[in-house]
């Protein structure tokens, strides 16, 4: 079983640390993590390992001065020294007029997010998984890479206003990249969930990646330009995450975000996306199972950001909300885009001529005003003609406004929990559908496979 602090242990440690901070107010966060991983490259196990760690973050507040010290040692001596350093640093820090009182206790949702299936993973199970992927690759003359990572993390936060919260979650992620032996085809597949039993099976995952690699072998270049695209979930997720990161009331009011409108206005109430697109954060959703409170312990409830294409809310810190007569509305990274029953195959069938995109790579902001990003397709890009995938095409660079993309959504598929990170780490939970988007802008061809 995972070696992380229980609620009682975390509470005892938090309270012990709080008592050591000799200040007007204090907050303590305790994050305890037990993690394991194994990596495969070129059909070999390359690196693997485990670590368990407890991090204690102590925040001291003197009037409106504040400082935070973090340590990964929890002996009484270490905590006392860290507490003293936090108080010393707070004394020397300039005043911060934006400091808000520490959050007080109020009801927060409870989320059962830890699964024995994940907590019980060990070196043997990691090697079994890796070996199964290698054998699958070798059987069809592929060169396989894979990453299997899992952890159990408990997070506790306590403050001198009487708040204490604790949450415990497990996460697992498995991904594989299969390349043809001649290096001319590449495919990727990934899966993540809190419950390791809910990961896609090793065989299915490997076969999905192998299918992409075979299909994209000998891909031919295609002219850059505007195409209708079917974006698979792994391609949709990072774009939605970037869009959601722009949902900040302060940046909008200050005129420096895609959600800003002249004279301090915002896009709330505007139609920002095709009808039918709804974007929600909800830590209690069975496919999300997020931590139901923020880093400082404020409860996270279900929030509808976009409803049927219309922007309903922007997130607001407690300071900004107090200054502007709003309710604070935190955003913590977990997202759900509601889907439909329409399968990926039926989405492809709606496209007369376009491209199927497996996933995206190296996405970077180009223009914050329009949320234009650049990046490339990777690990399986295919030409669709008359509703059917006809061949692989060489990868392409895109320069595309996400704001415009959401307006150009033509069809939505079924939503599922998606591995959205390029690194294969689990990342924040995101549940998204595949999307059909018209006029997606590709600006140049890439030789990369």
């Amino acid at each position, binding site marked *: 079983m995972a070696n992380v602090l229980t609620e009682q242990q975390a509470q005892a440690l938090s309270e012990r640390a709080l008592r050591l901070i000799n200040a007007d107010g204090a907050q303590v966060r305790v994050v305890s993590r037990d993690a394991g991983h194994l990596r495969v490259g070129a059909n070999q196990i390359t690196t693997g390992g485990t670590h368990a760690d407890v991090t204690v973050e102590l925040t001291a507040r003197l009037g409106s001065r504040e400082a935070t010290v973090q340590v990964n040692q929890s002996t009484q001596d270490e905590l006392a020294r860290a507490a003293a350093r936090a108080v010393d640093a707070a004394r020397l820090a300039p005043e911060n007029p934006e400091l808000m009182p520490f959050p007080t206790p109020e009801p927060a949702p409870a989320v059962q997010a830890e699964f024995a299936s994940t907590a019980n993973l060990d070196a043997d199970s990691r090697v079994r998984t890796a070996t199964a992927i290698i054998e699958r690759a070798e059987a069809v003359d592929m060169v396989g890479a894979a990453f299997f990572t899992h952890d159990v993390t408990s997070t506790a936060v306590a403050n001198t206003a009487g708040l204490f919260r604790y949450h415990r979650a497990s996460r697992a992620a498995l991904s594989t990249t299969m390349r043809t032996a001649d290096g001319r085809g590449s495919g990727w597949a990934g899966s993540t969930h809190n419950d390791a039993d809910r990961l896609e099976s090793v065989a299915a995952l490997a076969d999905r990646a192998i299918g992409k690699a075979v299909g994209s072998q000998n891909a031919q270049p295609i002219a850059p330009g505007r195409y209708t695209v079917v974006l698979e979930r792994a391609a949709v997720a990072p774009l939605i995450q970037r869009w959601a990161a722009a949902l900040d009331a302060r940046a909008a009011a*200050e005129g420096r975000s895609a959600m800003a409108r002249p004279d301090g206005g915002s896009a709330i109430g505007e139609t920002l996306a095709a009808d039918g697109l709804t974007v929600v954060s909800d830590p209690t959703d069975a496919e999300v199972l997020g931590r139901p409170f923020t880093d400082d312990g404020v409860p996270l409830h279900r929030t509808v950001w976009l409803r049927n294409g219309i922007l309903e809310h922007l997130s607001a810190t407690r300071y900004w909300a107090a200054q502007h007569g709003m309710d604070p509305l935190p955003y913590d990274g977990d997202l759900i885009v509601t889907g439909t029953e329409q399968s990926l195959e039926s989405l492809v069938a709606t496209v007369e001529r376009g491209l199927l995109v497996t996933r995206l790579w190296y996405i970077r902001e180009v223009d914050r005003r329009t949320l234009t990003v650049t990046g490339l397709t990777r690990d399986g890009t295919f030409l669709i003609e008359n509703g059917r995938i006809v061949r692989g095409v060489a990868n392409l660079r895109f320069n595309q406004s996400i704001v415009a993309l959401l307006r150009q959504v033509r069809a939505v598929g079924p939503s599922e929990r998606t591995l959205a990170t390029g690194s294969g780490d689990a990342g924040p939970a995101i549940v998204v559908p595949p999307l059909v988007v018209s006029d997606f802008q590709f600006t140049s061809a890439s030789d990369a496979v």
Partner: protein
Amino acid sequence: MSSVTRRDFVAQTTGAAAATALPGRARAAVPMQDAEAYAKQLCMLALDAAQGAGADYADARVVMTRRQVVRTRDDRVERVTDAEDQGFAVRVLVDGAWGFIGSPTVLRREAFRLARLAVEQARITAASQRSRVRLAPAPATPDGEWQSPVTIDPFSVGIEDKADLLLRSNSAALRAGGQFVESGIECARMETTFASTDGTLLHQVQYRTYPTMTITAVASDGSRFARRSSAEVAPMGLGYEHVQQADLPGRAASWADEAVAQLSAPSVAAGTYDLILHPSNLFLVIHETLGHSTELDRAMGFEAGYAGTSFLAPPSAMLNRFRFGPEFMNVQGDRTQHGGLATVGWDDEGIPADSWPIVRDGVFVDYQTTREQAGWISEYTGIDRSHGCAHASSWRYPPFQRMPNVSLLPGEEEHSLDDIVSATDRGLLIVGRGSYSIDQQRYNFQFGGQACYEIRNGQRVGQVRDVAFQGRTPEFWNALDMLGGTKTYELGGTLYDGKGQPGQLNAVSHGCPVARFKGINVLNTGA
């Protein structure tokens, strides 16, 4: 910031805890021989235990890091954080397979436990290992000691002084027309004690400092905003003297002026231009196109799952054959460069810092290597030792191949920036890193900048906005036609280069002169 007094230190190290735990945090404040001796003892215990459990090779690292960040926004301090992290890692080879385990518990009993677990893990892996790891020979360093060249320990400077410098900088930027300013100073100290069964025992301390600011100007009607960062100021492997010399308070107004000017600057006409890249922009192009493509693990397919592979593959077809650029192009891998972020005494396998050619007279001649990798290409390079490119971002993870400082050497002629501008009929001068993206084999890239000036008939005629350039690495470097001299040479760098699974960060510098590239495709990103 408080400092631990000698009395505190003595109390901590002579009490019951001293018998078991690594003492002391504020290591700059007191002599740390006792703590270092203790860490060395733990490493040696772990090596003995690993060999006793059957390891063919073992190394052990005790790593302590401290990272302090002071961040401000406009006229207020937003956040002051000071994080310490310490841990102990043991890595072993058994029957040619790696085992690794890290722990935050820096105790004698942990040395035995970690060694045993690492060997167990290696045995499990060895059972399904397809090919055995073979390490290149390493010189023994029985008593190594090294520290970054620091004049002022950044942790000896108080938080109030750091905040004051930043708030003065912000004030200057706001007075000059910036509407919003964010700034920060980040300081880090990494202390490593390392031992290996090849007879190495060493201790080294790296420092990093990074002052930054970003200024936003907003059009009066709110229709547009523009940002300018302090992109010419690089993070460095130096002390607080770097923060002082960066002079944010003195330069903030000019950066704010440029942000304001961008609001009314014309949008660039897309097309082909001769690009003059300032070192503050070119360093990142070097990082992405040259630094990553010459990593041997990528070329061999070991990074296919995340960072990607490389167009410089296979090594047999590329080494000494691939023309990267013109004959006056010389690129060096280097872990010795003064102030470089990847500058060390030894890498995380105990290999002494090296300096070697990667591109010589325009031809690709060598990769970045670790002990495990050196033998993979020695028949083509004639070099059977590691270039010392192993790095782990913490005790939590095993070391693997990471980028050293990779630098483009200046030209033999002492061309200045003005000389190159004067010699350019239709061009763009790009300063500072902006948006950046490159494919997983390091062919197709797109870069932006912080400030871009149009050049016509040898004259700078003013800023243009919405600029990004795209290219393909081999053609781009072969379009290099003018290099600045040594006086234009500067180090740029990044603290946050990600690679590996789990993702690990690496800090790396790239030196380069001003350089000109002919006929590069420029996009208008606002179109």
